[in-house]
């Protein structure tokens, strides 16, 4: 069932366009986003009068890597949010999928899986561009590869769990899903130290950032892929914590969001069934 849902997700995400063409669409967007950061950093370094060699700038490497991995967050969250909205309002197929012998929670996870695949390609392309065109120094020892993969799996599970929490809410809302789909990643983008260190935020902003699991995921990923000499130059705001502690926090928050997603999804599904709005159409 998961496999079929993932394939359906791919077809629907691409709106049945040619796979190759859709792949290009999916890659150009994040790469253009990375280029925006490149230009902004270039201008910032230029007016600062310092070296304009982006590859040597620790701050630039920090934000570039954060932005590359954030593609997963924005992509997967949007993928989870829009499943119910699109099936219900646009394709009007939710009643048939809902009646079929498939767990609806699993169905949404399957639909999100296609987004993970697309985001993986986009992230890889963005990182490759950073390494080969901008000469960003990324390095990882062989021993760190299993740990990196584990961090990626835990982090992605956490992102999917957050997506499922909010997908559940879209059972009960009309058009607000789209706003949430852009707003929640925007919140993470601002407070999780994605494109600037947490230490740049005011005190209250840093506290918000420290309460969000994405902060720890990105911190762990950066510690694993950036050389220590480069990473040490950036005041991340989380210098006091060691990598093991950060991964432990990520693990705990993933488990928390996973349980929350099940509870919230079941509750909102129950409320929607009770109110008879599982297949409502509002023409938004």
């Amino acid at each position, binding site marked *: 069932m998961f496999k079929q849902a993932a394939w359906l997700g791919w077809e629907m995400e691409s709106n049945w366009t040619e796979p190759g063409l859709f792949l290009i669409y999916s890659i150009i967007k994040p790469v*253009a986003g990375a280029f925006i950061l490149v230009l902004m950093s270039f*201008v910032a370094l230029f007016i*600062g009068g310092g070296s304009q060699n982006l590859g040597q700038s620790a701050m630039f490497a920090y934000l570039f890597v954060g932005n590359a991995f954030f593609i997963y967050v924005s992509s997967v969250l949007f993928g989870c949010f829009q499943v119910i909205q699109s099936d219900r309002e646009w394709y009007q197929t939710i009643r048939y999928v809902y009646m079929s012998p498939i767990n609806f929670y699993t169905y949404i996870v399957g639909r999100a899986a296609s987004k993970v695949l697309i985001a993986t390609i986009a992230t890889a392309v963005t990182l490759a561009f950073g390494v080969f065109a901008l000469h960003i120094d990324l390095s990882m020892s062989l021993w760190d590869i299993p740990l990196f993969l584990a961090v990626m799996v835990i982090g992605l599970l956490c992102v999917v769990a957050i997506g499922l929490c909010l997908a559940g809410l879209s059972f009960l809302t009309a058009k607000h899903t789209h706003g949430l789909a*852009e707003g929640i990643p*925007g919140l993470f983008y601002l407070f999780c130290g994605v*494109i*600037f260190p947490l230490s740049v935020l005011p005190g209250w902003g840093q506290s918000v950032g420290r309460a969000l699991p994405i902060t720890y995921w990105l911190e762990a990923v950066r510690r694993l892929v950036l050389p220590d000499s480069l990473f040490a130059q950036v005041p991340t705001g989380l210098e006091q914590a060691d990598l093991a502690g950060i991964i432990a926090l990520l693990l705990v928050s993933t488990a928390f969001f996973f349980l929350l997603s099940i509870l919230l999804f079941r509750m909102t599904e129950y409320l929607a069934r009770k109110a008879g709005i599982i297949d409502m159409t509002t*023409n938004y």
Partner: protein
Amino acid sequence: MTEPGFIRLNVRALLGRAYPRVIGGTRELSWIFFETVLPLLSIAAYVFIYKAFLPPNPDQTMLDKVNALVGYVVIGGTMTAFWLNVLWSMASQLYWEKEVGNLQLYMMAPMSRMALLGGMAVGGMFMTSTRAVTTLVVGVFIFGIVLTISNPLLILAVFFVTLIALYGMGMMFASLYLLYGREAWNLSALMEEPIFLLSGFYFPVKALGQTVAIGASIIPATLGLDALRQLMFPVSGFGTQFYFFSPELELAVLCVLAAVFLVLAKLSLGYLETLAKREGKLTTRHQ
């Protein structure tokens, strides 16, 4: 009952199509949160990038430079609202209308299809202006940006001509999108970040290099943003090295772009109608 004259009919059609977009803002107030507060989050993120690169203990000159760059981001973020409206509520609109079954009604109605697109544009401009102005004011207030309004009439002229050119472009795309069918959704998605990049929504467009910036000037937001920034930050701390052309010249080019896009919109609509009559499947859904 006498039939209205050509002009009256089309003015009524224009106002009728603009009406739901104008009045919608008073019926559904959630936009105040979703369309002013949420865009500020990404604007704030981009503002903090410039602040992150700020050296420790910056002097006043450096602070002036960063003030200008932060202002560039806020103005760019404000323009984002218009560009997204052009993409999703103008360019994609006829495609959506086809999907929900309204397009055949529009095709059968006696008014000019340009009046219909004009109404969408007027309503869209009004609806988005309320959101954009709120974002601008809140952004300026929150980030403490110091603006220098030296020539308000020129600023207004640049702003409105940019909008006319942008929505003219949207009117042209609306017809073309119908021909692309299912690709339309991806086409709109494709024209978000790449256009933010090419038009310099968050940095001075000249940083892309003169040649690329000239090429990107086909998108009205490029010149509009550059002119507005020059007029609002005449003493930006980094001199004129990031300014593109003079605001007067940019306004002149924008006027030409506005006229060209409106003519192209009219031509593409005509082509679409011919195609509709010849093939008879324009209004077929899910193509």
